[in-house]
């Protein structure tokens, strides 16, 4: 065991090169690097990493197989618990989950679990081979999965393996949810990674119907009554973008991060072959400090803009993953921390001209436990900018709840669940629509929980 070696560094595109392209930033391990990194794993008897993983991947076991170069067997172990290893290996906040609990991390550096997961998934995708799969005994019972994002995909995967007849309904023209419209190409390649992982679900017999907006195109009641679905899982995601509620937020050139990213990721505005209208500007100001804000800032940078990111708390409180912040800094995004926008000013034609901000200081902790920012009087200043991209989170889209009689929501419109079951019989929910905006992996964890709850529910009907 090579515990005396440090964590194997992963190769990345150089910041000054990658800041000008949409190719993936992280290049991943090769076989030798992966085997070396895997050798650092202590194979703990009581693996803390597994309990910290929302989908409970058998981490020491899949890493053990890498040590011996048995990448296909490693992949089979991963596949028992996740349908999206190439995705999770790229976008999970490992530092606060599996890697955050790794024993090696106490005195040194944690095992690069995420990078190893990604390696195995990429290796098997690049070197395809028919793997032994347990034969699925189909029961013909129909379950509807609403939304093809992480929660829905995870739920569909588990249910399909149990033998259910699954149809995923997606409102956009491509499946994947936030993996497709939200997370940029340079962090999560679409054709190469997302589409391929979703194709594997289709191979299990899962049907995906795009262009179906549940609540408008068809309701959950109609799915039950007219199309013989026995249960439904709602994983429809976070919903409506929030704006800062300042003067000038409807000026031309103010975009939600959702719009800015959707135009680029789903609609591929950066590729001239697509018809997608797009405006970025030479100077861009991004408001917010989460992963979405980092994605928007780094996308604008790649479109050639000079980017300033404004966040009201300090660096320590940035909700984004460390790696994303680090990458953004390396690529040249300018951070204005402890700063909050108070007004957006426009020119005579109604286009953004500047953003007026105020400096903040941290006061007492608020309900979230983070110290709440307080404006410093007289510290107002102006940043000249051509556009403002707002990444301040989302509000729940109520359409499904409003069109499903008997489904209770809380004061914020979030669907109320008990172990993923909603108050409406046969209807389950999980992911952002229940928790508010969170991460890919937490949504997947809820999707898995819902799958086993749905299985129990349907069996109880007989």
């Amino acid at each position, binding site marked *: 065991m090579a515990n005396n070696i440090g964590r194997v560094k992963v190769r990345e595109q150089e910041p000054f090169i990658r800041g000008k392209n949409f190719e993936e930033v992280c290049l991943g391990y090769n076989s030798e690097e992966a085997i070396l990194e895997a050798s650092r794993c202590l194979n703990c008897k009581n693996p803390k990493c597994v309990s910290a993983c929302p989908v409970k991947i058998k981490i020491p076991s899949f890493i053990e197989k890498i040590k011996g170069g048995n990448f296909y067997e490693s992949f089979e172990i991963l596949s028992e618990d996740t349908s999206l290893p190439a995705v999770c290996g790229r976008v999970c906040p490992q530092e606060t989950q599996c890697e955050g609990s790794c024993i090696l991390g106490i005195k040194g550096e944690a095992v690069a679990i995420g990078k190893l997961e990604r390696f195995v998934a990429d290796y098997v995708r690049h070197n395809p081979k028919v793997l032994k799969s347990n034969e699925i005994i189909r029961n013909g019972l129909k379950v509807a999965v609403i939304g093809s994002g992480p929660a829905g995909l995870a739920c569909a995967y588990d249910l399909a393996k149990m033998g259910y007849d699954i149809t995923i309904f997606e409102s956009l*023209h491509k499946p994947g949810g936030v993996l497709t419209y939200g997370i940029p190409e340079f962090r999560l390649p679409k054709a190469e990674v997302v589409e391929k992982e979703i194709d594997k679900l289709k191979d299990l017999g899962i049907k995906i119907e795009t262009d179906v907006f549940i609540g408008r195109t068809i309701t959950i009641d109609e799915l039950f009554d007219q199309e013989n679905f026995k249960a439904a899982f709602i994983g429809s995601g976070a919903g409506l973008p929030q704006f800062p509620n300042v003067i000038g937020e409807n000026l031309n050139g103010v975009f939600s991060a959702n719009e800015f990213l959707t135009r680029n990721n789903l609609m591929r505005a950066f590729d001239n072959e697509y018809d997608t209208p797009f405006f970025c500007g030479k100077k861009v100001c991004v408001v917010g400090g989460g992963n979405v804000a980092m994605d928007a800032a780094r996308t604008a940078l790649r479109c050639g803009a000079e980017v300033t990111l404004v966040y009201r708390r300090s660096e320590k409180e940035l909700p984004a993953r460390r790696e994303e912040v680090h990458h953004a800094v390396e690529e040249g995004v300018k951070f204005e921390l402890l700063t909050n926008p108070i007004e957006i000013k426009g020119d005579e034609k*109604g286009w953004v001209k500047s953003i007026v901000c105020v400096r903040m200081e941290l006061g007492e902790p608020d309900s979230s436990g983070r110290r709440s920012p307080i404006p410093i009087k007289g510290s107002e200043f102006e940043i000249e900018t051509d556009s403002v991209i707002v990444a301040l989170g989302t509000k729940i889209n109520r*359409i499904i709840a409003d069109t499903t009689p008997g489904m209770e929501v809380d004061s914020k419109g979030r669907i109320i669940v008990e172990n993923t079951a909603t108050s409406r019989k046969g209807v389950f929910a999980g992911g952002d629509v229940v928790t508010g905006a969170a991460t890919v992996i937490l949504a997947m964890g809820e999707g898995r929980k819902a799958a086993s709850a749905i299985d129990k529910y349907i069996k109880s009907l007989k």
Partner: protein
Amino acid sequence: MYKILVKKQLTPLIYYMEIDAPRVAASAKPGQFLIVKSSEKGERIPLTICDYDSSKGVISIVIQIVGASSYKICMLKEGEYLDNVLGPLGKPSDFMDFTDEQLKNRRYIFIAGGVGSAPIYPQVKYLYNKGVYVDVIIGARNKDLLVMEDQMRNVCNNLYVCTDDGSKGEKGLVTNLLERLIENGEKYDSGVAIGPMVMMKFVTLSAKKYNLPLVVSLNTLMVDGTGMCGACRVSVAGKMKFACVDGPEFNAYDVDFDEAMRRQRIYNDFEDVENKKLGLDTLLKR
């Protein structure tokens, strides 16, 4: 993939299509709209629903060439396919909540500008078939932008037609016609105006003179059409609303039309370049 079953050219710039879209046809109601994408690399654009037949699983659209994306849709042939048709989107018209009893004695006036006659058609038809009194005004810049006249005549009490240049119907604006009808003693309980943003703005000003309750349907920019992007946000009674999920219909008096018109122009420069590439710049004068 959604098959184009029927395609007709109505005027040099306006086309009619019947599309195989059973799920949309089964759920569509007056007041709702679609998001359509012509091909893999096309743009998602909002379009109005002109008619629907749930028994056949067919919807009809009327589409005017206003830029590259609408041009590409219009150039598809009968028997070819649209990549994506999402809908019905938005809330149905508010009168859908009224009982027949409540509707019975009401008198409606619909005012359509250009292809705005397409989205008002299912509304007018719905009300007229319920025995509601419905008058309709259709106006356009010229006869090449005037459509749906014959169909509309069959589903309303009186149809009034006007064009800015007098090439069809009477010469004048829809606002002149509306004001004259009311001045001449026509009484309406409710009005609905659908057309270009600027037309709806001026119809609102005319209606205000006579305290005529008025609803408008906002054709804002959109991407997903499901509430996710916020491109369609409008100020309504001073509050931010999303046309795709809160609308598209709003109380006309609450709408900030100047802001809405300005926001519609966000991508004009981009679109001018695209239109030029396709040689559409001479065809379309802004």
